[in-house]
């Protein structure tokens, strides 16, 4: 398609006898946030690093704006901004120096305003090794976007960040998307993926197990609605009962959790049961399946309820 910014076709990467990525294909459209999800060792970082030109594919092709990252690295480096999984700068380098250094290589004016915006204003003359993990991640993000690249690759950008920093980073990502920047986000954080991404690909053992928007993915799962019930006398804890449309039930703390195909049938039946047993409802929650539920369903199918709890 014309607005495909990133194209990955039959990409395969092998390390010795280990197949890290096994012939995956996907495309990322202009201006979208695309999530790469998967458990450890699924091939996310290998895919990201191959797009960044750090690893050479064993076979298949990767293109960013029709540029081959491995063969045309010089054309690539102004097109992409990268926040690596581990923040990597010399320990004695200050944020101000890092900004000058990388902007000079990108031939753009240093963006001290970005350092201010990301909360590094007071620390811009502190050495990198003296910054907290959160500030190091913020600096990595500032450096990744300082040259205003059309494509940004973020590998676990919120790992190790506190809640405030996370919210700030999400705000920056939204601003970038509003400006038309295409973002590829590799993350373990399902809530972040569900909230921030337009589409995701779930990688499992080097293959794409599912792809689509978070809404599409959750809709194509087993469709079970999670109904959590807590009552005053705990009658359901002693006898969880048999209710219509319920496929599985578990007890967790003071709650009985039912997985139902049809909440409209299950909930009135539970309420009737409580009334019959002269018990009073304390809490009732009905939740649609989340991306995390769907992710666990795909990645851990052998666990009860796909690993849901």
């Amino acid at each position, binding site marked *: 398609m014309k607005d495909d910014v990133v194209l990955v076709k039959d990409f395969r990467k092998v390390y010795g006898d280990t197949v890290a990525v096994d012939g995956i294909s996907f495309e990322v459209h202009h201006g979208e946030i695309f999530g790469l999800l998967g458990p450890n060792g699924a091939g996310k970082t290998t895919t990201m690093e191959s797009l960044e030109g750090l*690893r050479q594919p064993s076979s298949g092709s990767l293109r960013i704006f029709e540029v081959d990252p491995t063969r045309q690295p010089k054309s690539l480096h102004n097109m992409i901004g*990268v926040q690596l999984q581990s923040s990597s700068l010399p320990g004695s380098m200050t944020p101000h120096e890092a900004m000058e*250094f990388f902007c*000079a290589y990108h031939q753009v004016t240093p963006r001290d305003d970005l350092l201010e915006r990301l909360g590094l204003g007071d620390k811009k003359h502190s050495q990198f090794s003296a910054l907290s993990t959160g500030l190091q991640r913020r600096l990595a993000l500032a450096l990744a976007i300082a040259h205003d690249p059309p494509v940004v690759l973020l590998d676990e950008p919120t790992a190790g960040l506190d809640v405030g920093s996370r919210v700030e980073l999400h705000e920056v990502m939204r601003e970038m998307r509003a400006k038309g920047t295409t973002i590829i986000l590799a993350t373990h954080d399902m809530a972040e993926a569900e909230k921030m991404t337009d589409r995701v690909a779930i990688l499992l053992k080097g293959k794409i197990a599912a792809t689509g928007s978070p809404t599409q993915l959750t809709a194509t799962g087993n469709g079970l609605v999670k109904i959590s019930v807590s009552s005053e006398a705990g009658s359901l804890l002693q006898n969880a009962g048999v209710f219509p449309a319920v496929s599985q039930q578990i007890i967790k703390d003071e709650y009985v959790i039912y997985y139902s195909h049809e909440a409209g049938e299950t909930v009135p039946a539970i309420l009737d049961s409580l009334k019959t047993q002269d018990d009073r409802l304390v809490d009732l929650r009905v939740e649609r399946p989340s991306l995390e539920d769907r992710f666990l369903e795909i990645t851990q199918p052998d666990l009860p309820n796909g690993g849901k709890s």
Partner: protein
Amino acid sequence: MTAFFHHFMYDFRTGLRDKSLLLMNYLFPLGFYVLMGLLMTGLNPTFAPTMIPAMILVAMMACTLLGLPNPVVESREAGIFRSFKINGVPALSIVTIPVLSSFVHIILVSIIITFTAGPFFKAGIPANWGYFVLILLLTAFTMASLGMLIGVVSPNSRAIVLFSQTIFLPSMILGGLMIPSNMLPTSLYRISLLLPTSYAMNAWRGLAFGMAPTFDPRWALLVLLSSGVIAFAMAIYLFNWDSKNQRSGHNPFLALLTLLPFVLGAILLGV
């Protein structure tokens, strides 16, 4: 050019800011110089005439063989070079800039030694300043290239210590710094010709200080230059952005080619 300048300035400042580099670039060589000036000039009368080049060579070895390789290995292992690669920093800059900034540190220390050794320790002053500076620059280039090559081919810090000390320690004892090479027994003299300092001292003695060289100092210049050029070229050729993605076909044993001029020198000049 701006990027190169920023990179160079950052690297130079690191040589002053980083405590271990400050130690290797300035504190250790200048402290050693003062100690030798106070002790050796009284104990060994042959030391004072060549004290300046000897102490400059100690400074060069500390800066290049002991100081320069470690940041290269650490940066590669920590993924710093990967960040550099993604942001368009060329491998040539990564190899060249530490060599150049080492040059500047060496020159600053050399100035201090050259202009204080005479008045304070009655050291011999160069008779030919042109050759003195030329040999200084050439030796600094060769040493810095060797240091960079050690950093490029060393898989870890332990390997750096092994490779660096293989040159540093024998150079201190046999390299003509404390005792002139012509006073060594023949077998040790031949071994001393495997060390860059022996050639630098011979060139300085013959061309800059008006003393009798052990062999034609022009050969010394040629050996130093060829080894420096090979070491620099090999450092660029064998450079790896990270330890996980070694470039295939680039055998690190090629680095041994750097020793070829010294081996030839030992064979041809050690008679």
